[in-house]
């Protein structure tokens, strides 16, 4: 786990595939309106791309690229996006998480927009928590 996998085929294929895996994960999060998917599924795929990087190139190299403090802050930012979206609806005159009264568009389209914002928040939190749990459980000693 310290220097990664010892084979050059694994390292080359991981280096080629990780950007495409992350692009597919973003597609799954944002296309959740029209196909199966959504926030949780896309967040887990993003977390899996970080775990693949740590398995192929070593835990220390992965911690230099995805720092632990940044992952912890990202855990909280996703929950703040979700709760903040509900609070925005409260400030504009409706109930908490009442998407019909938010201030940008008119009623059927504002609900679709707020669903997208909320799913992005869920995806960020799930990615950061999956990566943090892997880095905490795989410490060697």
């Amino acid at each position, binding site marked *: 786990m310290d220097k990664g996998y010892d084979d050059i085929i694994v390292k080359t294929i991981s280096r080629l595939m990780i950007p495409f895996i992350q692009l597919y994960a973003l597609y799954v999060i944002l296309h*959740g*309106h*029209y*196909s*199966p*998917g*959504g*926030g949780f599924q896309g967040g887990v795929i993003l977390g899996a791309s970080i775990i693949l990087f740590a398995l192929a190139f070593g835990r220390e190299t992965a911690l230099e690229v995805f720092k632990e403090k940044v992952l*912890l802050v990202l*855990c*909280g930012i*996703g*929950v703040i996006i*979700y*709760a903040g979206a*509900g609070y925005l609806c409260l400030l504009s005159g409706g109930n*908490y*998480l009442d*998407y019909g009264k938010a201030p940008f568009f008119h009623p*059927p*389209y504002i*609900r*679709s927009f*707020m*669903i997208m914002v*909320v*799913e992005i*928040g*869920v995806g960020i*939190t*799930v990615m*950061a*928590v999956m990566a*943090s*749990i892997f880095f*905490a*459980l795989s*410490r060697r*000693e």
Partner: protein
Amino acid sequence: MKLLAALSAFLTGAILIYGTLFMPPFGDPKAPAHTHVAPRYIARALEETEVPNIVTAILADYRGYDTLGETTVIFTAGVSVILLLRRNKK
């Protein structure tokens, strides 16, 4: 010990199978699960939210408060794992 565990698992399985004899058959359209809230969600989801995927519309709009609690659960699990597996620096 393992014989006692296997016997109690078998007995619990027999009681549960007796309990499922009174449930509706597989795929029945007149079952109570299909007649209370689900037809209202299916009929009004597109005109109220402009999202064709009914599962995402229910998860993030009609039952959005449950998904907020869910995100808090996974955040709490991440924080607890980091707190439990900490090493004190000397």
